[in-house]
């Protein structure tokens, strides 16, 4: 079943580092959900190999102008999800460049709720 664990952007790196065993946990993706009052919930979703229905979600509530820490040094494959979230919500992730889906100078942020 889905288990949600709250974290914050300051403690995220430490939490993930303690939690993540690369042979046991499979990193699914990074997800963002727009909340009310200009807040954003960022989720880091993991599942366990060979175990039925075990999903762990780390989440943190942030503001749009806050810098999200990068977990690429712990999980190399997170880079592509981080680039996606930069494009989709117009947030900034540490060390991640723009322009995976949208043009690099694009002002559009399709899912942030503030454009279109």
């Amino acid at each position, binding site marked *: 079943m*889905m288990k949600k664990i709250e974290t914050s952007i300051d403690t995220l790196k430490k939490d993930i580092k303690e939690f993540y065993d*690369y*042979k046991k946990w*499979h*990193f*699914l*993706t990074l*997800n*963002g*959900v*727009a909340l009310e009052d200009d807040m954003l919930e960022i*989720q880091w*979703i993991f*599942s*366990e*190999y*060979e*175990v*039925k*229905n*075990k*999903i762990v*979600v780390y989440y943190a509530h942030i503001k749009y102008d806050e810098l999200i820490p990068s977990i690429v040094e712990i*999980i*190399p*494959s997170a*880079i*592509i*999800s981080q680039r*996606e979230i930069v*494009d*989709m919500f117009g947030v900034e992730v540490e060390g991640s460049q723009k*322009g*995976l*889906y*949208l043009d690099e100078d694009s002002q559009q942020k*399709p*899912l942030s709720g503030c454009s*279109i």
Partner: protein
Amino acid sequence: MKKTINIPIGSQHIALLEPVRFKFECENEKIVGVDSDVGFVHRGIEKACTTKFKYDAIGYVVARVCGLCAITHSMTYTASIEKLIGGEITQKAKYLRILLLELDRIHSHMLCLSHTCENAGFEAMFMRIMGDREDIMEIQELITGNRVQFDYISIGGVNRDIDAALAKKILSKLELVRQKVLGYMDEFTNNWSLSLKFKGVGILTLDDAYRFNAIGPLARASGVQADVRNEIDYLPYNEIGFKMQKHTEGDINARNLIRLNELLNSIEMCNNILEGLPEGEIFTKLRGKPNGESVVRFEAPRGELMYYVKANGSAMLERVRIKTPTFSSIPAFSHIFTGANYADAPAILASFDPCLSCTAK
């Protein structure tokens, strides 16, 4: 003096019918760096799901994310909505869903195998597999009424039933396909020129597969036991003879063999379903509106597909997040390409079975 040359593949390239651009940085013909750009067909489906369509129509919207794994998309979405509403569907509907999912996997794997052959310069094999794939497409048309967009799964069950005469017809066609798959097995293991092209090329080691979170046939060819069909319980996969395929070499040949074995396993599962189909209704009306959030994963032909759905009790959903298989394998792709020979690049690329309309959704 610059020592490397940049070779682009895509976004319109004969080896790659998909809108993606890979930029290879090569020394002579050896690749030393890869850059990818995937956003050519971004259609904003996630946004459309939360602004334009009600929750019961989205099953048809997300099926249009991708033509090849359409049924997996609608299946995963439907499963997450059913989880949020909290209804239970009948056993027969579950079996029929698996039947279609496995047929879809068969035709998708056949497409991938043929494409791998074509990119290795083996047109005759391409034509042969594509010709045989028609049988599967016909079965799908017989069941659902359409070849590509099935629109078969809806919230609460499935849309069409199959009768005994149809089941018999499908069984005989599946047997034909099985014979043909055994023929490919022989070809893929024994053809000398294919072995030059495939064996020991594009290797992903077990450790790298874990580190880059490889999924689907890519991971299983390296020896990771990652098959979502083994990690879920809302479809009765254990009852119908699902066997996880695994190889350890991690090269193109291993990926092809994984796909071929999965074809055989899928055909066997389809046979088991058709022979032991339970009686009952195919559709249960589910009352209520979705509320809460759910993460549902499913094994698409290319690997793990994930839907995150957040609803607030109204007809419009708050958030739909689609994580497609190809999207999360891009880091693994880039890793494999580094150090490979450019002459192998198209074959390696086809062996990943990339689906870019999925990726850019």
